[in-house]
């Protein structure tokens, strides 16, 4: 499965060259929290560059090499991504890209894992998780996923769990790191001034490993659950979560993408028009897909006394999609805008990388004309069918005081 694990796209369009190295591990706890800590450790210091100052000196020498290690979820897999950006050699006027790759490898393969560095990583991760929890909209989203995805990967928050951090030992992290290097399927994408030599160099370091599960799955339908908490803030955060019964490995998934645009991703989407523009009940309301889990979310911030009214309006908009009760021009503009955004994707390296990676996870390759053709084919009937499959799974409300 997915043997072409290194994709290098040579281009002189950008001033920088960017790489993303992605490791796919089990999407379950406590592995997720181990990997979230590993991300901090890989960002901090390595055996080769054992102090923060040594890391800074090296990255400056490599023309402001910027690197970041992040974790995220892709359905059945938890991803740890090492991403770095460095100035293209034609502007640097030095051959430094292989050195930049070596620097990344030093961070990935030999992060400095000591009691002190682990303690620091724990402090940073705790603070980051608290920051997320302190934001009502993010807190509501996490709760909705936990409720609606119970017993499935969706329920796991990809950034880790606060309550697990203190009990994690140095040995846990050392073993987790060894497992990541030995077992995780890896995917690498580079975009910029690259050559076959870089490909060969990476192939020597990383060998292909088969994925044991498909990444994408469809979350199962469960009894509807709600959770309401209160917070001493003025605005209420509301998140509704729906099973779509389709994930992005399905052949008819494009209709769901277009439906989501129509519902709540455009400034003239149904949710935006009816709830914000006509009734002035919110500033922000949008729908989005969790592609690898088969889930759609609708998020907004409103006054507490409007919760029922807004929920009723949300359901009305979904019903309009089911019955094709909207101007056909809206469908056409959603399709043309989605096509336009895909066409322009290659101007934005991080987005381009994400799309190519998502396709790879599902055993597909990047074919712009095919993607455009699929969008163009979507009909009002396809939208109605996709909307007809939506089943409410959960609702999370962080209730404000007004």
């Amino acid at each position, binding site marked *: 499965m997915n043997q072409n694990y290194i994709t290098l796209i040579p*281009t002189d*369009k*950008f*001033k*920088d060259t960017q790489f993303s190295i992605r490791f796919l591990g089990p999407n379950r706890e406590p592995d997720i929290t181990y990997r979230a800590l590993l991300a*901090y450790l890989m960002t901090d210091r390595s055996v080769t560059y054992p*102090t*923060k*100052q040594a*890391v*800074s*000196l090296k990255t*400056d*020498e490599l*023309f*402001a090499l*910027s690197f970041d290690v992040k974790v995220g979820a892709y359905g059945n897999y938890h991803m740890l991504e090492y991403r770095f*950006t460095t100035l293209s050699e034609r502007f*640097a006027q030095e051959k430094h890209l292989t050195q930049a790759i070596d620097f990344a490898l030093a961070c990935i393969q030999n992060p400095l894992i000591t009691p*002190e560095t682990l303690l*620091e990583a724990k*402090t*940073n991760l705790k*603070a*980051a998780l*608290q*920051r997320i*929890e*302190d*934001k*009502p909209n993010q807190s509501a989203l996490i709760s909705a996923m936990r409720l609606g995805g119970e017993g499935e990967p969706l329920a796991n928050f990809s950034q880790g769990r606060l309550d697990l951090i203190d009990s994690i030992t140095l040995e846990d992290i050392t073993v987790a790191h060894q497992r990541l290097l030995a077992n995780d399927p890896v995917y690498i994408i580079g975009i910029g001034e690259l050559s076959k030599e870089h490909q060969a160099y990476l192939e020597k370091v990383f060998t292909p490993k088969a994925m044991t599960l498909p990444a994408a799955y469809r979350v199962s339908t469960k009894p509807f659950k709600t959770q309401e908490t209160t*917070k*001493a*803030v*003025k*605005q209420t955060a509301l998140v509704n979560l729906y099973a779509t019964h389709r994930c992005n490995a399905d052949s008819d998934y494009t209709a769901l993408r277009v439906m989501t645009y129509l519902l709540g991703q*455009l*400034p*003239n989407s149904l949710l935006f028009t009816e709830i914000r523009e006509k009734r*002035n*009940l*919110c*500033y*922000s309301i949008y729908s989005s897909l969790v592609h690898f889990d088969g889930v759609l979310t609708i998020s907004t*911030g409103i*006054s507490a006394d409007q919760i029922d009214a807004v929920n009723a309006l949300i359901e009305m908009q979904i019903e309009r999609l089911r019955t094709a009760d909207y101007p056909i*021009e809206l469908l056409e*503009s*959603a399709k043309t*805008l989605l*096509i*336009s*955004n895909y*066409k*322009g*994707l*290659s*101007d934005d*390296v991080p987005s381009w990388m994400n799309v190519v990676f998502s396709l790879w996870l599902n055993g597909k390759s990047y074919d712009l004309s095919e993607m455009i053709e699929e969008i163009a084919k979507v009909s009002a009937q396809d939208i109605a069918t996709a909307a007809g499959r939506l089943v409410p799974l959960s609702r999370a409300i962080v209730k*404000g005081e007004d």
Partner: protein
Amino acid sequence: MEKFVDTLLDEAIYTQILPSGLKVILLHKKDNINTTAYFAVPFGALTLTQRLSDGTVIQHEPGLAHFLEHKLFENHQGMDVMERFSALSCNVNAFTSYTETVYYFNTSRPDVQEPLTLLLDFVQSLNVTAESVEKEKKIIIQELRMYHQMPEARLMYETYRALYHNLSVKYDIGGSEASVTAITKSGLETAYRMNYHPSNAAVVIVSSQDPADLMRVIESNLIAQAKTILPSWVNETSQEPLTVVHRHKHIPMDISATKMTYTFKLAPISGDPIARHRHEWALKLRLELLFSSLNPQYQQWVDAGIIHDYFGYDVEINETYAFVLFYGETENEAQFTSLIDTVLKQPIEPLSSYLYQLKRRYRSFAFRLLDDQDDYAVHTIRGLFTGVTLNDSLRVLQDMCEQDLINAAKLMENVPSAIVAVTPRKVVQ
């Protein structure tokens, strides 16, 4: 149309000033698929008082520039502007900062004549009714509440309020619920007439399309030949004492960790913008040497639990206000401020050998900025309005020497400071 090829940055830039006074800058990116076009006016949240040549003083409500941004999208010649852009395969949006308001669209469509014309057209007319103004207030108040409950945004807002007695930077960009409620149709129309004239505005486009074609579209638009005379006015700035409003302020919030700022209120620097920018660079580089991981002591501060990865600093020096701000997450603010005070007194000389590499770092960052259409365009717009271009900035950086960094310390001598924290409710007595 003038063409300028930047050999250092490998960029081609075309500029022209139209008869109406509209400034146009085309940033030609030959390999890009998308075209992004921006219409900008130097009218942001800071501009609250404007004096006409006859002496009349126009006082705008805080948040008015942002309100105007919302309302310009409404009903252009009977059509919904956002809907029209969507139908043209364009993403459209706008933002208001303290110093400017910017409207923009982006698209991958090969022919941008229609959306570009639409952008130029819809910003040339304000069509509001008293009823639509009232309706918008509800939306904006929800927007203000959204930002107000974000701990980071709230911390910055409270920091400005602690620093400034009179300057309009003490208000949120969107204003307050009270000031938004007080905004009227006529107030919006007055501000629009005064600040949205082409002679006061700029169009910046990042595109691979033929610059001559793009320029023709702009020139053929009414905006090129606008005949109306811009009322003559000057922005007025309130007198601001060199003291802070609150030396110490705690804001209870329903959060789990305390966030704080420790801010030094500097004297603003008027006059030559490049000279001002030189001061800003010198201070930034000085702080980068002292407070980043280039300083070997940095790890000790982390190990002692005084800072963690949510720590940073910011320097802003402009004509009307200036400050140096440190931020972090800590329950022990005395330890945090003591660290800042101690390190600020340290000599820069032991670290100044790293100045060369800092220059190399920021030069590389400048190249990076050019790969992002939005960053490149917004930087260009601000460069136009402030008089400091990216090239100016790089030249200033290149010329920086150790002595500049030593001298920069004087900007922070004997200046007042403020400590502001957003704290979990339970900590507050």
